[in-house]
């Protein structure tokens, strides 16, 4: 079964450092997402990306965050200057079309720890 692949699985960084989380969506999917889950809390939407631009972003997705599709396969989330409160599990997800009426497939997650 096709998978969404995320790297790294776990990253530890110092406060103020830049972090890039990488994702390889399912090959025929066109709509990409990042979600965040702080430990013990629910999963929260960060941003959606379609046709090489941001479609929608939440209030969490401030100027410290950016997304990019640098080539035909990778989709990245960059955090410019990490804060302690950025410690969380970050999930990448993708779906075939922009319509909500189809399955959203999630990757295994990247756990970010900011010290």
């Amino acid at each position: 079964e096709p998978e969404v692949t995320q790297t790294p699985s776990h990253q530890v960084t110092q406060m103020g450092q830049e972090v890039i989380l990488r994702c390889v969506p399912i090959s025929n999917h066109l709509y990409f997402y990042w979600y965040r889950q702080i430990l013990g809390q629910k999963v929260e939407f960060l941003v959606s990306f379609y046709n090489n631009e941001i479609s929608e972003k939440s209030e969490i997705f401030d100027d410290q965050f950016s997304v990019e599709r640098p080539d035909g396969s990778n989709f990245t989330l960059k955090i410019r200057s990490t804060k302690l409160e950025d410690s969380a599990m970050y999930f990448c997800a993708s779906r075939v079309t922009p319509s909500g009426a189809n399955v959203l497939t999630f990757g295994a997650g990247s756990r970010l720890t900011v010290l």
Partner: protein
Amino acid sequence: GIQVEQSPPDLILQEGANSTLRCNFSDSVNNLQWFHQNPWGQLINLFYIPSGTKQNGRLSATTVATERYSLLYISSSQTTDSGVYFCAVDRETSGSRLTFGEGTQLTVNP
């Protein structure tokens, strides 16, 4: 935005017991998914079920879209069923993001 409420928040079972998890949502949806988050944090998609009933082994789910709720049934529970179960929905009028509930923490004891 759309509200998603899950109940109960916590559930403790003995192995072999059956359980029902509920998800209520506040608006019309065109996507509803149930996920199991395992101890490693991975989100495992269980069902895509915006309406109707589906079954997969010991798990089944029913969504009554007109009444804005969904139920996840777990029969003959096993210790490996432990974890957090999330319901997530896409609002019909937006269609671009899933909104998650708070989850049900299930513990199955041997």
